[in-house]
């Protein structure tokens, strides 16, 4: 039995006014983190209020881009056509120096992955509108 896999590009996010600045910065190859102007808590995903002190004075700060692998999944069976040719591939959850966590791809062998692996962010250009997080191992 054969069937055609529809031509579909990489899945993309739908933005709103709370999240658009974060994504726009990625496109400029800059990682921002939403930061509370009152208690300085770093917040991700972006939201309208600081859950720590309930301030609505929120701003964007540059992230150090550095963190460590907190968990990961290796996808061996893909559902979305875009990923079918990429298996097996890893998706990582990285704990950043500022305490936030980010999901991204990683540029290493799957068997290299371990808890606490130090990484830093790079940017993977998708199209004219989007760049994604691609972590690389810091040696």
């Amino acid at each position, binding site marked *: 039995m054969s069937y055609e896999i529809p031509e579909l590009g990489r*899945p*993309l996010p739908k933005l709103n006014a709370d999240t658009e600045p974060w994504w726009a910065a990625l496109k400029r190859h800059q990682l921002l983190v939403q930061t509370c102007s009152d208690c300085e808590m770093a917040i991700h995903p972006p939201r309208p209020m600081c859950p720590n002190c309930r301030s609505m004075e929120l701003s964007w700060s540059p992230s150090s881009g550095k963190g460590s692998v*907190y968990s990961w*999944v*290796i996808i*061996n069976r893909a*559902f979305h056509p875009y990923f079918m040719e990429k298996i097996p591939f890893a998706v990582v959850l990285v704990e950043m120096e500022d305490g936030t966590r980010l*999901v991204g791809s990683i540029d290493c062998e799957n068997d290299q992955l371990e*808890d606490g692996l130090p990484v830093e962010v790079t940017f993977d250009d998708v199209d004219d509108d989007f760049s*994604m997080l691609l972590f690389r191992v810091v040696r």
Partner: protein
Amino acid sequence: MNDQLKRKTAIAGIGTTEYSFNSGRSEQRLAIEAINQALQEAGLTPDDVDGLVNSDYEATNQVDVVNAMGMQNIASFATIPHGGGSPCGAIAHAAMMVASGQCKCVVAYRSMNERSGHRYGSPEIPARYDWVYGLHAPYGLIVPAEWVAMHGRRRMIEFGETREQWAQVPLTCRANANNNPAALLHEKKLTLEDYLNAPILADPLCRYDYCLETDGAVALVITSAEKAESLASTPAYIHAAVQGMGHQIWYQSNYYGGSLTTGSENVAAAKQLWAKSGLTPRNIDVAQIYDHFTPAVLTSLEDYGFCEKGDAGGFVSDGNIGPDGELPINTAGGLQAEGYIHGWNLILEAVRQIRGTSSNQVRDVEFSLVTSCCGAPTSAAILSR
């Protein structure tokens, strides 16, 4: 805590269709069949029903139920959100509707052609992924198993859990299903070897760590305790029924605040459950633990207090969850082997354990626990005889 709901109401009727991979019928028809059966076994008719409760993921609109069954006395209705987190929340809301005097007889239902129709485990492939999904889908985390695998990995990192330990959850569910003629996998055996040799789909999860995809429907009738005692069926008293939200919380991907190995929503629900019931985990004779994915069962056993945090791997592999164990779980086969009616079929088995009609009946059951989904705003209930 003085709980105004404690033992004031009861589940007076249960109904279910068969569980299958292809029902050959509409979800509306499945819902009506299940509701009809639940009413009939209680000796009630659609004219007795004055309240309706369903889930936000429900395909059968309440008006389709009313229109088909000729219900003319509906006085209150509610829809409980958060998918697999909703089932015991539906019990809680139905109990509130009855105990407050707004309703005398509430029907709660869930119907789905989840295998032959739209499959939750398959991607929608929308043009764009909104909300927190948009942070995950671009990297290939698209379906629930893939999101939950991130939590499962963290259990292995923090607690040194092994797949041999995890296997005890699907093996227990399957052995229970092998005794339950109504279970979808009644005739299919599962061995440890099968489990360990299975392809790892979303590493560290293999296919046997996943729940089923099922066509079917279930329904419950909730009345006052007093009324239930006058009806044809054996009442399962609603001793406690609670919801819990937790902080911070998304859907199956609670990556961004706190621990990946604790369900803040479970902890919130458990805290209320024990306070309102006046019970402790030691009082529970049998439990139906929401088993959409194996690691979520382990996290739930800890969060509800059946063992210490980090000890669930040992707890399940020391024989505690089997039919003769300290805490028999998922005695009809659970969502992994009986069927997956989005967690609602677990409630029916909790009722059967009170009635003494389970195919894996635990002896002398006084308190029967059922939980809803770990990984979303959730709910739990304790039924009593």
